[in-house]
C-alpha cells in the first residue's frame, strides 16, 4: 500500500520558537529547513514496533485499594489518516501527570504529591477501527518553572507511529472548559483556532457502561492519504 504525504498547512501546526517557553530559542534550527521530495525511505516506516517496545496496556488508573487518587475517566480515541480511514494496529504511547499534576519522573521536582498507585504511562495498539481506550484519572494542572511561570492546563501526551516515517506524531490533548487553556503557551503556539479546538477532547454522556467515570472522546488525524490508482 502506498501513502501520499502532502506538505502541512503551517497554521495548523505549532510555531517552533514559542515566546515564554525559554528552551525553544536554543534548540530549534536557525537555518531554513531543507525541502526534500519524499522518497521510499520516508514513505515507509516501522509497522510493528511492538517487538522493540513492551506493551503496557491502557488501564492505568488502578483498581480497588490500588486505585489512583483523582477523577476516574475513560478516554475513547479514534486514530485516522487524512482520508478519514482508520489507522489500525499502530502503537500508541500515552503519558500524563497524576491527579495532583505531578509526573512519575525524576525530572519532576514540583511539590505536588506523588501517587504510589499512579505511574502514568500506557502503551497499546489501535484496533481495526483505529480505536483505543484509556482508563485513567484526569491529570492535574502543573506550574512550569520559568521566571514568569505559567501553568500547564490538564493535558495528556500521545506518541503515535502510523504507517510511514512521516506519519509519526507527538501531540497533546486538552480538556474542554479549562480556564488555563486560554493562556497555555504550548496549546496557543498553534495559530489556527480550529486546529487548536481539535486538540481539545469532548465530554460525552456515558452510555451502556457503569457511571463511575467521566467519558471523553477524541480524534487524532495522522498524516497520509492512500495513493489513488490514477497517480503515476
Amino acid at each position: 500500500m502506498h501513502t501520499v504525504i502532502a506538505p502541512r498547512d503551517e497554521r495548523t501546526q505549532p510555531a517552533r520558537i514559542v515566546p515564554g517557553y525559554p528552551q525553544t530559542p536554543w534548540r530549534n534550527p536557525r537555518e531554513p529547513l531543507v525541502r526534500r521530495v519524499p522518497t521510499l525511505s520516508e514513505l515507509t516506516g516501522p509497522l510493528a514496533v511492538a517487538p522493540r517496545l513492551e506493551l503496557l496496556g491502557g488501564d492505568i488508573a488502578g483498581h480497588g485499594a490500588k486505585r489512583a487518587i483523582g477523577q476516574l475517566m475513560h478516554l475513547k480515541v479514534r486514530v485516522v489518516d487524512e482520508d478519514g480511514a482508520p489507522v489500525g494496529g499502530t502503537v500508541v504511547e500515552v503519558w500524563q501527570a497524576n491527579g495532583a499534576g505531578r509526573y512519575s519522573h525524576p525530572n519532576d521536582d514540583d511539590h505536588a504529591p506523588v501517587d504510589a498507585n499512579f505511574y502514568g504511562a500506557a502503551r497499546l495498539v489501535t484496533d481495526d477501527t483505529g480505536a483505543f481506550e484509556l482508563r485513567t484519572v484526569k491529570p492535574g494542572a502543573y506550574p512550569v518553572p520559568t521566571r514568569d511561570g505559567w501553568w500547564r492546563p490538564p493535558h495528556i501526551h500521545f506518541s503515535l507511529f502510523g504507517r510511514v516515517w512521516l506519519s509519526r506524531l507527538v501531540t497533546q490533548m486538552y480538556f474542554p472548559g479549562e480556564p488555563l487553556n486560554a493562556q497555555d503557551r504550548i496549546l496557543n503556539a498553534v495559530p489556527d483556532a480550529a486546529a487548536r479546538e481539535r486538540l481539545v477532547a469532548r465530554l460525552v454522556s456515558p452510555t451502556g457502561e457503569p457511571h463511575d467515570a467521566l467519558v471523553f472522546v477524541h480524534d487524532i488525524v495522522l498524516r497520509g492519504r492512500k495513493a489513488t490508482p490514477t497517480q503515476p
Partner: protein
Amino acid sequence: MIPTGEATIGPFFPPRFVDAGANDLTQLAGRKAQGEVIQISGCVRQEDGEALENLVLEIWQPDAKGIYRHPADPRHAEADADFLGWGRAATDQEGNYAFRTVRPGAPAGRAPHVDFMLMFSGLMRILKTTLYFEGEAANGADPVLAAVPAARRALLVARREAPGKYRFELKLRGEHETPFFDD
C-alpha cells in the same frame, strides 16, 4: 481531514518508554539480522554547546540489502525477517546516544543512509534528519543529500572513527548546525 497539531514531548517522557535493547537493531526476537554490525553514536548539543540529556532519538533504515520492512518497498517480500529497521535511544548525562545496527544497503536511487528523528523538551515539532556514511561513493548522487546546500552536506556524513564505528554529531542550532528536513 487535517493532521493533528504536533507538540513537544516535554520534560517528562517516561524513562520506561526507552525500553532496554530498543537501541539494538541487530536482533529481533533473539534472531540475528544479516549484514555487518555497526555502531552509530554521537552527542546532541544546543546552540550554546550544552549537551542535552534525555533527548529521544529514533532511527529507520533498510536491511543490509537495502530493503525496507514495509509493503511499499517493491522488494519487501525479500526483506530480512530478522531485521525490523527501527530503534529508539535517549541521550545520557553527557548528551551521548548510541545505536547498534547493521550497515544499510542502498535503496534504489539512493546512497546508503539512516533516517533520524529527534524529540525533546523545547522541540515543538519533531526534527528529522538523515545520516550518510563517510567514504560512500554513492553519496555524490543521492537526491536527498543533493537537496542540502553544498556547504552543509558534510554535516550529514557520519565520520568513521574505527572499523564498524561511526560518529554522527547533532547540533540543534548555531555553529555546525545539523541540516534538518522540512517534512
